[in-house]
């Protein structure tokens, strides 16, 4: 079925297969989904690597992401410009990392980026507050939020700069048995 597809060259498909956790069929299916999001923008022929980006607003309406409280951050973390406009490469990359086959270390790196709201490579207290509010849909009182953030930073911060670097984050996550599973 579909031996002769004209969307990608074989070389491109091989490269996708080697660099992501998807097989050729899944890459083609992903292209179909990408195309569905913006049929007038996305060409069917990707053999010459067109530079087409889909805006954030269209991507976060996908059913897989719609109810996720962190959808904006996820899409922003995988975009080149940091604003959430994804090319097809970024799109594939995003789903590859979020898929089951991705190893824990890779997910940890991207999780850190997702939780880092102000993109300064540290999770500071404001980032944690925003994370908490998104997690609990603002059910906690401000005092509770404050207390949780302070306690979390106190527990995880190893170098004493009152914000979490990636090393602190990874150290903490390594103790959790089912992180992002």
């Amino acid at each position, binding site marked *: *079925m579909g*031996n002769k597809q004209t969307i990608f060259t*074989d070389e491109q498909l091989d*490269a*996708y297969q*080697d*660099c*992501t956790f998807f*097989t*050729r*069929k899944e890459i083609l299916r992903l292209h179909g989904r990408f195309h569905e999001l913006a049929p007038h923008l996305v060409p069917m022929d990707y053999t010459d690597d067109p530079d087409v980006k889909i805006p954030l607003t269209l991507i976060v309406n996908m059913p*897989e992401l*719609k*109810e*996720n*409280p*962190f959808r904006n951050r996820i899409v922003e973390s995988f*975009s*080149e*410009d*940091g604003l959430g406009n994804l090319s097809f*490469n*970024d799109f*594939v*990359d995003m789903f*590859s990392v*979020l898929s*089951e086959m991705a190893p824990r*270390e*890779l997910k940890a*790196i*991207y*999780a850190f980026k997702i939780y880092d709201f102000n*993109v300064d*490579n540290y999770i500071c207290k404001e980032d944690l507050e925003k*994370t*908490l509010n998104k*997690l*609990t*849909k603002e*059910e*906690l009182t401000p005092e*509770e939020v404050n*207390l*949780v953030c302070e*306690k*979390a930073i106190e*527990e*995880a911060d190893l170098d004493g700069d009152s914000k979490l*670097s*990636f*090393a602190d*984050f*990874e150290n*903490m*996550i390594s*103790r*959790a048995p*089912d*992180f992002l599973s």
Partner: protein
Amino acid sequence: MQLCRRRQSHRPSIHSFSRSARPSICGYRVESDAAHFEAEENKKEQLINNLQNLSVGERVRMLKAIPLNLAEKSELRRLASNKTIHSPSPHEIPCCSHFKDYIIIALRNGRYSWLSFVSSMQLWQTALKTVSGRFGTGVLSYFVFLRTLFFFNVFLLLVTGLFLVVPQAVRPPVLKKTAPVHFGLELLTGAGYFSDSLLYYGYYSNYTLQKPCSNSCGSHLSYNMPLAYFFTIGVAFFITCIILVYSMSQSFGQSFRVDRSKGLLTIKVFSCWDFKVIKKSSVKLQCENISTQLKELVAEVNRKEVKSSWLQCLFTVSVQLLAWFICIGSTVACALAVYYFSEYMHKDLIDHKHSCSNSSQTAESSGSVLLKEASLLALPTVVSSVNLLMPGFFNTVAWMEEYDSPSKRNYVAIFRNLMLKVSMLGVLCFHWLGRVAVQHPKCMDLQRSLLGEFRGAGVIPIPVDGLHLHHAGYLNWRAPLEVSHLPRRITQSAQHSEHRTKTDFYCFSKLTPSLSLAPTPRLFTQKVLKKKRKPVFDIARNVLELIYGQTLAWLGVLFTPLLPAVQVTKLLLLFYVKKMSLMMNCQAPRKPWLASQMTTFFITLLCFPSFLGAAVCVTYTMWT
């Protein structure tokens, strides 16, 4: 080894990994200084060299795990495989790789559907999540415990059903025809029609079941009923014991692990969220769960030590001692009351039998039979009402005490209820095993009349000697066993028929109170006590009731192999009734508290007083 991206990109691509087959990727930073560009290019060369030196499989695995964006990765791949280029003919590869793709996708889909099937098989998963989100982990532990008990009973039911009920149902013994008396009380007392059924011990044959051979008997399909009975019960208890001890050790280990790990809060914040959830209601449920758990953790962390003066301390301690004294005293009083009442009922029954046997046996009016059946219900009613009212009394006493943490209050309540239940069970066991078993063999007339009345003792009229002689192969070792046990069996069946009736309508009578219990607390508190607030779910009382019911089930399974079925039905109904009443009537505990060791505690309680006591009683009964 570091790699850097062009400055304008927001996707940092810096990682470091050691020269190993499975690189560990840790830490990265955005390199925006152009001065480092040259050094980074060198490092890129080094990376490509590394990649080249690996085998193809390893290279692919490493490439996939690099946190760079795709364009860079494919560039790396191209450069690395430049030296080892082999261009396969475009016609060979596609079909093989298509086939491989199909297989991989099929396997993966199969694995996912299996995983989702397994997780959906977890009984009541959604209900438990809803309860835990709204009411906290304390109430959740009750429902988890209920589910555990449910599984235990299902297992017991399977074992007894497969090995005892099914063979007996296929070959029903010959019984004397009797006209069952219908008064409608049978459902509660378990006597009358039910005494001739599979429900009771006496129905089960005391001989080996033989399949009647029609033409030529090639091989006899025989099933040794008494032996099967004995061994099934023994093995079921043994396996239950093992499972209990195993689950106890598992939950011990879990609770210790949870305690020892610092940073529980952080872990909860960062790794609790399940990104695979996409349905709106599930997302809402998850948010509720996480916020409740976080609130509980915060409350734990936040608990301040209130330093009170000496006088305050003394006052508190003396109030608590007084409360304990009252509770223990009332428990002892109830136990004594039940003891004397049971003695009175027993004497009454014996007198009644004597008067019946003295006068003509056939002239029994329906009215007196009804009275007799109803009087069998008296003792269980008394015990049930004690079990119903005393925990409420304990709660009232606990109002005047002040405990600084809700979990301590819960533990105290559990202990008081435990004392009550243990004393009740002790009195009942003494009544059954001590009084009923001991007094009957002395009176053969009494026995015969009892047998005639309960009718489940179908074992007696069978001329066992003759039957045993027919079974070749069994004669050697079984016959002496059977013969020596015969007299005991006869008397025992009489006693057991008495036991089983009491045990069973005990358990039946447990059903009705526990079902009706659910809606009453709210009505009670709102109308009688004129309180505006909804009551809080009383964990201690409900858990102890579960353990109590389970102990009775274990005690009774020797006499009534179908008792696990009753228990399974009861637990199933109880789950839904309790959940419904919880959602409608109760409010969340005022102070959220973390019930980390509750499950361990409940299972320990189940194992030690409950299961051990039941096992000891059953062994004692089987031995004598």
